[in-house]
C-alpha cells in the first residue's frame, strides 16, 4: 500500500478531500533540534535555508517550495519518528530534511521507505544510515570520508607513528577505526588508541600519556564546544606542540568556537570538507546572502550541509515534483558547485562525493579573526565507510 492509498483512506474517514494538497505547492518538513543544548544546529539550518531562498527564490520548476520546521530537542528517535509521521500525514510534506543525530535519522527509515519520501540528511554522519532506506540522501559527510584521507595525508607528510585520542561514543569510534585502517594500510603505525569518556573535562593525564609515547602526531576526534577548548589548551600547555607532536583533527577548529580558542588554536591542522574561508565565487555569494539576512550568523559545516541539501531538494522538485522515487532517481549522479567546492551525489552511497581539504588555523590579516585556511585538496572522495 502506498502513502497515496493510505492518505486517501484517512481522508475518506475524515471526510476531507485530497484537494488540499495543491499540485503547485511542495512542502519540505525540517526535523532538527531548535531548542536545548543543540539548538544551534536548527538555527544554522534555518539560516542556510533562508539564505538559499533569498538567492534562488521560492520557486523550483513550476512549484512553490515552503519549509515547515519541527523541533526534535536532542537525540530523541521516538519524537523524530512521530514528527515525521505527523509531517507526512497531516502536513502532507513531500520531502523531509534536517537530522542532526544518527538515531533520529535512523528512526524515520521505515516511515520514508513506506511513504517513498526523499529525505535529505543535513548532518548525521554515520555511514550505515543510508543503507536503511533507498530514500535517504546525504549532503553532509561521513566520518571515514574525512578521517581516512587525514591518515593518508599524514603518512605522505612523513608521519609514521600516531596516537589516536577520540571521544568514546559512536562518531569518535568511527573516526578512530577509519583513521587506523587507512594509516596502517599505508604502512604507518598507530601506537595507541585512547578512548576518552564523553564527560572528560581534564585532558592532562591523557595528553601526558601521548607525550610520553612521543608519536609523530596525535589524531583526535572530539564533539564540538567546551571539550575542544580544553583539549587544545592542554595540548599547548603540556608542551606537545614544542615536543613536535603534530595535531591532526577534523571538526575541532569548527568556526562557532574558533574565536574562543584564541591564539592556542593557531597552527592547528585539520582535515575537513568545508571552511567558510574557502576561496570561491559560490562561497562568497552564500556568505553574503547569509550575512544580509543574519548579520551575526557564522557559517560552518551544518550551514553548508543544509544549503546544499536545499539545492538538492530544488533540483529534485524541478525534475520530479512530488514523485518521490523519480526525485531520488533525478538526484543520483547530480553534480553542482557548492560553497565548499564541486559536489556530486554518489549514485551508490547517496552521500556526496566532495573535496577533502587540509587546513591550518591562521589569523586573517584583514578581519583579525581566526579562520581555517585551506592549503590544498588532499582527496576527492565519497563515503569511504560504505563497504565496511
Amino acid at each position, binding site marked *: 500500500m502506498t502513502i497515496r492509498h*493510505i492518505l486517501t483512506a484517512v481522508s475518506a474517514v475524515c471526510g476531507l478531500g485530497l484537494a488540499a494538497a495543491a499540485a503547485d505547492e511542495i512542502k519540505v518538513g525540517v526535523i532538527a533540534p531548535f*531548542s536545548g543544548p543543540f539548538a544551534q544546529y536548527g538555527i544554522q539550518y534555518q539560516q542556510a535555508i533562508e539564505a538559499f531562498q533569498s538567492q534562488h527564490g521560492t520557486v523550483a520548476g513550476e512549484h512553490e517550495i515552503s519549509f515547515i520546521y519541527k523541533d526534535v530537542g536532542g537525540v530523541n528517535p521516538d*519524537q523524530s519518528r512521530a514528527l515525521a509521521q505527523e509531517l507526512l500525514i497531516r502536513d502532507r510534506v513531500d520531502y523531509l530534511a534536517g537530522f542532526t543525530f544518527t538515531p533520529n535519522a535512523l528512526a524515520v527509515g521505515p516511515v520514508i521507505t513506506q511513504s517513498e519520501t526523499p529525505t535529505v540528511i543535513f548532518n548525521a554522519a554515520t555511514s550505515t544510515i543510508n543503507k536503511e532506506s533507498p530514500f535517504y540522501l546525504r549532503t553532509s559527510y561521513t566520518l571515514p570520508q574525512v578521517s581516512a584521507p587525514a591518515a593518508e595525508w599524514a603518512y605522505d607528510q612523513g608521519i609514521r607513528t600516531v596516537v589516536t585520542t577520540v571521544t568514546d*561514543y559512536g562518531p569518535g569510534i568511527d573516526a578512530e577505526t577509519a583513521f587506523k585502517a587507512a594509516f596502517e594500510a599505508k604502512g604507518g603505525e598507530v601506537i595507541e588508541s585512547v578512548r576518552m569518556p564523553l564527560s572528560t573535562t581534564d585532558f592532562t593525564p591523557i595528553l601526558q600519556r601521548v607525550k610520553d609515547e612521543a608519536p609523530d602526531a596525535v589524531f583526535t576526534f572530539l564533539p564540538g564546544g567546551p571539550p575542544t577548548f580544553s583539549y587544545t589548551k592542554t595540548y599547548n600547555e603540556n608542551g606537545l606542540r614544542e615536543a613536535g607532536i603534530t595535531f591532526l583533527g577534523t571538526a575541532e577548529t569548527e568556526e562557532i568556537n574558533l574565536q574562543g580558542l584564541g591564539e592556542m588554536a593557531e597552527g592547528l591542522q585539520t582535515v575537513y570538507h568545508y571552511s567558510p574561508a574557502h576561496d570561491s565565487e559560490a562561497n562568497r555569494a552564500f556568505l553574503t546572502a547569509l550575512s544580509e539576512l543574519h548579520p551575526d550568523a557564522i557559517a560552518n559545516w551544518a550551514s553548508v550541509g543544509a544549503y546544499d541539501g536545499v539545492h538538492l531538494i530544488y533540483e529534485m522538485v524541478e525534475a520530479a515534483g512530488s514523485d518521490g522515487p523519480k526525485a531520488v532517481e533525478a538526484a543520483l549522479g547530480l553534480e553542482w558547485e557548492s560553497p565548499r567546492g564541486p559536489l556530486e551525489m554518489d549514485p551508490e552511497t547517496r552521500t556526496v562525493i566532495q573535496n577533502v581539504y587540509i587546513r591550518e588555523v591562521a589569523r586573517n590579516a584583514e578581519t583579525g579573526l581566526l579562520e581555517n585556511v585551506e592549503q590544498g585538496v588532499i582527496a576527492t572522495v565519497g563515503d569511504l565507510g560504505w563497504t565496511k
Partner: protein
Amino acid sequence: MTRPFIPALVMLIAAVAAFFLFPYNLAFLTRILIMIVLVLSLDLVLGFAGIATLGQAAMYGAGAYAAGLFAIHVWADPVAGLLIGALAGGALAALSGAVLMRTQGLTLIMLTIAVAQICAEIANQAREVTGGADGMRGIRPGKVLGLWEFDFIGITGYWYALTIAGLVFAALFVIGRSPFGLSLRGIHESPARMEAIGVSVYRRRLAAYTLGGGIAGIAGALSAQITQLVSLEAFSFTLSAEALIMLILGGTGRLYGAVLGTVIFMAVHHTAAANDPFNWLFVIGALVLAVVFFLPSGIAALPTSLKRLAKGGRHAGS
C-alpha cells in the same frame, strides 16, 4: 462503589474520542500513552511507596533494549516482547533495588541516577549488541496477536498502546486498593510505625520497586516496538526527570494525576513546540512554576483546591 470508576470511564471515552478527533496525530497520541505507562510506574514507586527516584529510565531502557533484542533475534511477536520487557525491567529493579531500598533520601536519589547512568554506559560500550550511540535498529514487530499489522499511520499502534495503558491502569487501580497497596501508603506516611506493627518495610519497598520496574519495562518495550529503534536516550536522566515533572504536575499518589499530568505536559509541549519551535521551553517552565506555586498537590487536586477556595471565600465574606 461505582463512583471510583467514573473518572476511569471518562478517560477511556476521551482516549477513544481522541482517535477520531485527531486522526493525523496518532503517532503523538501513542507517545503520550507510552509516557502514561512510564509515569504510572513512577506513581507506584514514588507516589504510593514514597521511594524517591530519579532513575526510572533505567528500567524503561532495560525493557526497551530487551524487547528490541528479543524481536530481532528470537521472536517478533509484540505481546511476547512486552512480557520480556516487563521481565527485564522487573529484574533490573529487583537487582538494583536489593541494594537501593536499604537507603533513603538523597543517597537513594543519587543511587537511582547512578544505576541509569551505568546502564547507559553498558549499552554504549556493547556496540555490537546494542548499536551504541547510533541506536539499535532492525526491530520489526510482527502482527499484534497475529491479527493486526503495525501500519504507517499508527492506527494499530494507538489501540495497542491504549489497551496496554488501560490494563496497567486497571492493575494499579486494584493494587492501590489491595492490602499491599495500602501498606505501601502506610510506609509512605510513616515507615517507623509500619515497622512497629510488624511490616517488613524493606521487602514491601523492594516489591513495589520491582513491580514499578516491570511496568516501566513495559513502557520501554512499547516504545521500542512503536518507534522500531532504541537509542541510549532511553536511559537518559532527562527522561526520568520529565516523567517526574509530569507526575508532580498531575499530582503524586493519584493514578488520575499521573495520567492527567502526562497528557497536559505533553500536549502543552507539543502545541508550544509546534507554534514556536525556538522558545517553547518558556511555556513549559511557566506551566510547571504555576502548578508548583498554586496547586502544590498537582492538577488532579484542582477540584479540592477550588472547593477549599470557595469555602475560604465565604468565610472571608461572613
